[in-house]
């Protein structure tokens, strides 16, 4: 970074040049012992620092523009539905609505496509104020059990959801227990939009982290029902919603993939979403959003990187200009040993 290539110290000239042949290693060792290895001593010269900052600016601003462009090219439709899907009579007490099993949970949302969206289009559900990274939560799983199933007995890490009625739970732990269970169906015009819900989880997880022959067992059988249930006839390796959910998020606000729409959406298309609003975020004020988004080489829509690049780049340029101005207006005597205080005093006295 601040290696100034041209500046080799006087050390290197003093030291005899290293012979290329067999003595090289020996010479190196002796130079090491004498602390006289040829060294490059970079110094922060004004020219070099100003140039570096300018270069930084000129590299970062274009990258920032490109990144921002890519991010802006991503189209997304975000629809918050948790509040609107509560029937009027429960508005005052949303928690009781979601806990009441007798109340139908289905809800319909209408989304408008503003611009042409090219396939593949990703469907995410977004949860806000949901702490998947909480200490109690994030540790409450057993990777061994997910892979080996009942053959693996030590599920102490899954507390407090490790067993039920004396039988182990597969998959155990709070994460699996709180599986997200809202479902969506999309209708464009009259036809149902085909949503591909395969291959949404990481292939490595499906193949190596979740057992192909491990079936859910004793799951959600307790008195306390958490989130979604699992089909006990499908092995964990194929339960992709679970696999996606089990990839915990580092942030309290996150999106998880629900599926892919593999046909283009035209501008002004109207999409009707039928959803089952099962998941309880009301008790802690969490938000639920449905996100339909295209993708770019950078991933989803996120202006942060582009803005940050432009900010850093332009700051670098401004800084370099300030330094340049300072340098021109107020040139410093460079390496003038007369400025050493002991020499100054020598002059004055």
């Amino acid at each position: 970074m601040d290696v100034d290539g041209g500046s080799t110290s006087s050390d290197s000239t003093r030291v005899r040049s290293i012979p290329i042949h067999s003595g090289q290693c020996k010479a190196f060792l002796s130079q090491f012992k004498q602390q006289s290895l040829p060294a490059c001593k970079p110094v922060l010269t004004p020219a070099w620092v100003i140039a570096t900052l300018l270069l930084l600016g000129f590299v970062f601003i274009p990258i920032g523009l490109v990144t921002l462009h890519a991010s802006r090219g991503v189209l997304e439709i975000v629809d918050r539905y948790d509040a609107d899907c509560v029937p009027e009579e429960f508005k005052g007490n949303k928690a009781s609505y979601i806990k009441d099993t007798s109340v139908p949970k289905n809800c319909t949302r209408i989304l408008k496509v503003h611009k042409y969206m090219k396939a593949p289009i990703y469907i995410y559900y977004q949860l806000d104020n949901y702490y998947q990274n909480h200490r109690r939560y994030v540790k409450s799983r057993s990777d061994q059990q997910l892979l080996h199933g009942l053959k693996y007995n030590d599920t102490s890490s899954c507390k407090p959801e490790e067993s039920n009625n004396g039988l182990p739970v597969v998959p155990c732990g709070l994460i699996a227990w709180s599986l997200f269970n809202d479902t969506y169906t999309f209708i464009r015009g009259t036809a149902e939009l085909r949503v591909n819900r395969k291959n949404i989880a990481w292939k490595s997880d499906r193949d190596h982290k979740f057992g192909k022959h491990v079936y859910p067992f004793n799951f959600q059988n307790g008195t306390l029902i958490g989130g979604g249930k699992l089909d006990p006839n499908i092995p964990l390796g194929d339960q992709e919603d679970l696999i996606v959910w089990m990839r915990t998020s580092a942030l309290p606000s996150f999106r998880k993939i629900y599926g892919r729409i593999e046909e283009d959406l035209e501008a002004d298309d109207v999409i009707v979403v039928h959803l089952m609003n099962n998941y309880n975020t009301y008790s802690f004020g969490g938000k639920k959003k449905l996100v339909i988004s295209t993708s770019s080489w950078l991933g989803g829509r996120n202006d942060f990187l582009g803005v940050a690049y432009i900010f850093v780049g332009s700051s670098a340029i401004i800084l370099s200009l300030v330094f340049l101005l300072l340098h021109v207006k107020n040139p410093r005597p460079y390496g003038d040993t007369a400025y050493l205080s002991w020499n100054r005093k020598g002059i004055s006295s």
Partner: protein
Amino acid sequence: MKRFVYINDDESPTQEIYCDNRISNRKYTLLNFLPKNLWEQFSRFMNQYFLLIACLQLWSLITPVNPASTWGPLIFIFAVSASKEAWDDYNRYLSDKKANDKEVWVVRQGIKKHLQAQDIHVGNIVWLRENDEVPCDLVLIGTSDPQGLCYLETAALDGETDLKTRAIPSACMGIDSDLLHKIKGVIECPNPDKDIRRFDANLRLFPPFIDNDVCPLTIKNTILQSCYLRNTEWVCGVAVYTGNETKLGMSRGIPEPKLTAMDAMIDKLTGAIFVFQIVVVIVLGIAGNVWKDTEARKHWYVLYPNEGPWYELLVIPLRFELLCSIMIPISIKVSLDLMKGLYAKFIDWDAEMIDHETGCPSHATNTAISEDLGQVEYILTDKTGTLTENKMVFRRCCINGIFYGNESGNALKDARLLNAVASGSPDVIQFLTVMAICNTVIPVQSKTGAILYKAQSQDEDALVQAAAKLHMVFVSKSGNILEIRYNASVLHYEVLEILEFTSERKRMSVVVRDCQNRKIILLSKGADEAILPYTAAGQQTRTFSEAVEQYAQMGLRTLCLAWRELKEDEYHEWSLMFREASSTLVDREWRIAEVCQRLEHDLEALGITAIEDRLQDGVPETIETLRKAGINFWMLTGDKQNTAIQIALSCNFISPEPKGQLLLIDGKTEDEVSRSLERVLLTMSITTSEPKDVAFVVDGWALEILLKHYRKAFTDLAILSRTAICCRVTPSQKAQLVELLKSCDYRTLAVGDGGNDVRMIQQADIGVGISGREGLQAARAADYSIGKFRFLKRLILVHGRYSYNRTAFLSQYSFYKSLLICFIQIFFSFISGVSGTSLFNSVSLMAYNVFYTSIPVLVSVLDKDLSEETVMQHPQILFYCQAGRLLNPSTFAGWFGRSLFHAIVVFIISINAYAYEKSEMEEVAMVALSGCIWLQAFVVTLETNSFTILQHLAIWGNLIAFYVINWIVSAIPSSGMYTIMFRLCGQPSYWITVFLIVAAGMGPILALKYFRYTYRPSKINTLQQAERLGGPILSLGNIEPQPRSLEKEVSPLSITQPKNRSSVYEPLLSDSPNARRSFGSGTPFDFFQSQSRLSSSSYSRNCKDN
């Protein structure tokens, strides 16, 4: 307490009481190694802390990460230091075993048997042959030599390489060698001690070897463990001290480990961080509990039980304690130890610090205190052998009022003296006789016929050599008979008694019988004040005093020679007293001195010898450079005041008039001393404002009074004075002075070469020994041993300074990187419900501290901020180290701020760039970790001043290693971060994020550094820039080589201007009752006043407080 040793008595109980001769230097045994070693390691606070953390981590409820992440490094570190201890102990065991298994001839049941050395018991008779090593402390009872002498090489004991003679006690004289193994008797001796110069015991033989007298034993009658028998066919002796109770075994001790100022500062900073950590833990712990009770219970998926266990409130604070535990980096101790080891190695390897005369390299015995070298404020130096070569040459003499050698500077070439010798002038002959005989020199005839002298004192050697050159040759010594060849005639003298030299008596005498005329004469030599007062009444001693004065002004060492004829009965009467005194067990030394005094009176002074001790090469330059570097010098010598002052002048120690001023503290009584001290203090406090170099001179007598009664005032004086000369001081006073300066919180370095400096060297923060002619005693006791005084410059300015700079960087960097990752964890806790979740996984956390961030910084051991030449030219730059400018709370605050800033940058960028659908925990963690690794690589780069190939390898290689290691871990299906790193490296957004972190993190730091560097440069920066510009770095403060030879400066002063030297210079002291001399007033001198101001003590003190 006494011990009674029954000689050769197999049934005596002593065999059981006293230990056998098994030597054991081992610290551990096989059984107690583990507990004892662990106990020792855990007696340190840092280790206790780490153990506590590691134990807490075993509680899975609170541990944020796998306990292995702490236990791994902890066990590794403990294993490393335990195996080092074990290896050292094993080597000690091997060498012990070798010594214990050695076979020796021992008498058992009256029969000589070949036994292992470890089976020797107290009271056994041991037979040794030539070149055997002595297995235990023995009292001689027989030798092959008819005179009862044997020769001993004591190098292993005291480092002196000359041969020493040892004699059998008089009671054993003449016992037939066949009867020796039947000898019975009792030796009454003190309990074991470590004084290798004293053995006050008595011997009584039992019938048939009846001897009425109790025979006194001295150290002369013993041969001590680890010496070698030389030039003697065989000896036999009685074991008195065995095993670990021998003199050598007792004196062996593990010195107190020294702690550097830097270590103390690091400990202090560690303490501060610990407090900070506790505060963070408490704050976050409370916040966590509050959040838990208000928020977390609403989050049903966390499933908090309504009723927790009793320790519930503790869980969250303890989790944070564990999360924050990495604030105190476990790696810092290992890194520091490694670095310190390398510093010491660099000193050992330094080709420029090899003494080419002896081929002796410098050596760092203590590997832990190199940084202190860079922080030295006071150097206390011995004179003889340290500043001077300790190569004594006889230069001048004054015999009976006639000065020889004044013209040529070499008395041996003075025609008048040669004529006097040739003509047989009786004064001169007597003078030469004393020179040749009055000593303890052993002449050894070499194969070529030349005579070599083995002398314990360099002065005696010089005198005997000089006498030989003046045709009075000391040819041989067989028993008590000395053979002297004078011109063609051979003279014999029988030595009757030797009145040995002690530092209290300051003289030595021999009583000899002249075999030619059977007369008994007493020959004495010693310091003038120890001889001249005892001369016969009526003898004019003025000329001698003047001669002494004159020679001392030239920096020559003077000895006064005297003699007296004894009457036969006077001698016999005295001899009885002497014998009695010699056999006392209590206060023997004092009693002997008293008895000697009775003989040494009414002497006839013969003359004065003047011996030159040349200054070592480069001493004035070294002292000048180090004084410019702000180091204060004190000279502590046993020599005379005038000699000391002259040497001080000639080696730039003090500056002559009018720039310099010497203030004398003297007086014989308490009153005089106190008045004198007050005056000096007054003068000092006034003159500190002037650019004047003030030094005070004090002698041993006055010092004794000062230290006893006026300690506080003297301490004030010590603080004010940059230079001091203390003459005629004893070893213990030297140590007291060191202690005095240490108590004022100064870093002291003591340098010396002889046994009399050992205490001072051990007392000082840093002890430097000159491996010189006075043996290796000082060098062994010292932390550093060097061949020549001038290497001190390089030791301090190059090695000390670099060590300080490097450790300053390493330690602060270690805290920076630990704080960085810790701050990120803390920030993460704010978005994870203050629940104490660790963002990073166990592997990353462990590898971050132990591996990723430790390797690159280790190569800073090669970093040089300024080249060696620049430092030598601008020694003032050492001030930065002395004042601790590179490691103190404010620099540390800078690093603290930097880690906070970097943590914010990394955290904000990682969580924003990897938000929404990319917010998978493992990925975010790896992005943040990559950001940290990249940042630290650039921080090391920015802070490195000189890049060698190794630095590039370590910094960039480490970055590559980070990816390689993570790819490997990512390839293991069972690991938590399976495929993560491959996934990330394939994403353009990952690289864009990482570069953003680097630019945002380093940009402001680069700008700030550049701004400081250019517009607020430190002296170091200015010199760096100057160096970069190339060309010769000229400054006014350059040290021109100044060939200040002793002769040139001194001779005009003392000889051509004899009147001037007593001229009085006392601007402030005109009321002084004592005539106060100014020294060297006749010589015009220039002095670099530039430095006296900068580095005057007040200046450096002010800066230190900043």
